[in-house]
């Protein structure tokens, strides 16, 4: 079942409704509760290839519901070291647990200083409130 609305305070957020969880020199990335709710139940994740490069603020993949398709924007730059196959196989995992089992990619950061430009939870929820 769909998760309840939440925005964990240990994540960094991008205003295009993406999040990053920093783990050493890597970051796990996904889409926020708001993004999955706006799309509805996900039925497809067009994932990047492991080993490919993602750039901050640029789309690296697509998520689709029955009604809509949306780019997924990367909050960080670096090399994709892992794609969440569980989401490729069962995209609705993102709706069930957007910050946990519904993560999308793991990235080895090429420029950790970029993290400073991301939003904390207070700033991101303000973005949502302003919409």
């Amino acid at each position, binding site marked *: 079942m769909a998760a309840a609305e939440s925005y964990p305070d240990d994540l960094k957020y991008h205003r295009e409704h993406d999040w990053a969880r920093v783990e050493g020199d890597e970051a796990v990335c996904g889409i926020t509760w708001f993004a999955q709710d706006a799309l*509805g*139940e996900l*039925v*497809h994740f067009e994932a990047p290839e492991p080993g490919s490069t993602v750039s901050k603020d640029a789309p690296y993949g697509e998520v*689709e519901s*029955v*009604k809509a*398709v949306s780019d997924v924007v990367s909050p960080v730059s670096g090399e994709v070291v892992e794609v969440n196959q569980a989401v490729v196989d069962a995209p609705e995992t993102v709706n069930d647990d957007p910050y946990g089992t519904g993560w999308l990619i793991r990235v080895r950061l090429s420029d950790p200083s970029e993290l400073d430009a991301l939003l904390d939870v207070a700033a991101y929820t303000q973005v949502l409130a302003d919409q």
Partner: protein
Amino acid sequence: MSQTLLKTPLHDRHVALGARMVPFAGWEMPVQYVGVIPEHRAVRAGAGAFDVSHMGEIDVEGPRAHELLQGLLSNDLGRLEPGQAQYTLLTNERGGIVDDLIAYRLERHHYLLVVNASNRDADFRWIKEREIAGSEVRDVSDEYALVAVQGPDALAKLGLGPAASFTFSTETIDGVECMVNRTGYTGEEGCEILAMAEDAGTLWDGILARGVVPCGLGARDTLRLEASLPLHGNDIGPGTDAISAGLGWTCALATKEFTGSAALARIKEQGPERKLVSFVMEEKAIPRQGMPIEGGGEVTSGTHSPMLDVGIGMGYVPAAAALAGTKLTVDVRGKQRAARVVKRPIYKREG
């Protein structure tokens, strides 16, 4: 410039049910209540109710009503007795499809046309401009509400017995007198219920109290696409003709003349250059309207099939590529994805 959206008589109930409301053809309509996929499955497995009161109703009455409509609509109304209905097309001189609609023969000299919401005004003007002495054409859309109840349990939940499809009768459901039409847009059993607008709330509440699941336009679209039913504005339109769209069966070319019938007869004789086909993806990808199909085709509707769990769609392809089993390649935002033409409908419940 802001345009005020129209609201059906059930608007407040949709909002109270927590529906996500969206603009559609000038109306504010529920796209989903809980989710497109659960609502879709409810219709395939049980019964779902759709508010389709945004659709238009045009009343045509008079001793020459039949003659007027026979000249404008593609199907042969001469085959209808009062109490029977028919899927038919309003055609232009080139054989293009102004609208697809259902014509109900209420009485010998009295028809009701149920038309697409987005075409209501155009259809009314089209028919009104061609009105002849002895026929009176009225847009009565605002007088009626229309609720579709669809699914294998739909009739049982409403306490209705079986009846032939495309027939209708006057019934009383939960105290509301209504016209029950054995028609639908999901590929399932069920009916579409026409009631007076002021009775809509009572009817809707009664239907939901019988355990029918409220469903939005999102599920209506995925259901009709699984059933390979064309959507006017996507799959058919003024620039596409009935023969190419596989709707030649709605054109009584052998028995009467109507607007565009000569053009349609020519297309039929020569064979259409393109045909509307149903297809399923053979790779993980979801086709969407406007995507090119390799070899000179185009996707006109696409989605993810909740029942088959694959991408499905409809589109025009060169006639030589229209046979079931033909391999297609769809350009999904720059990626070439394999698909296969299938027989209609794309999905049909077993049994």
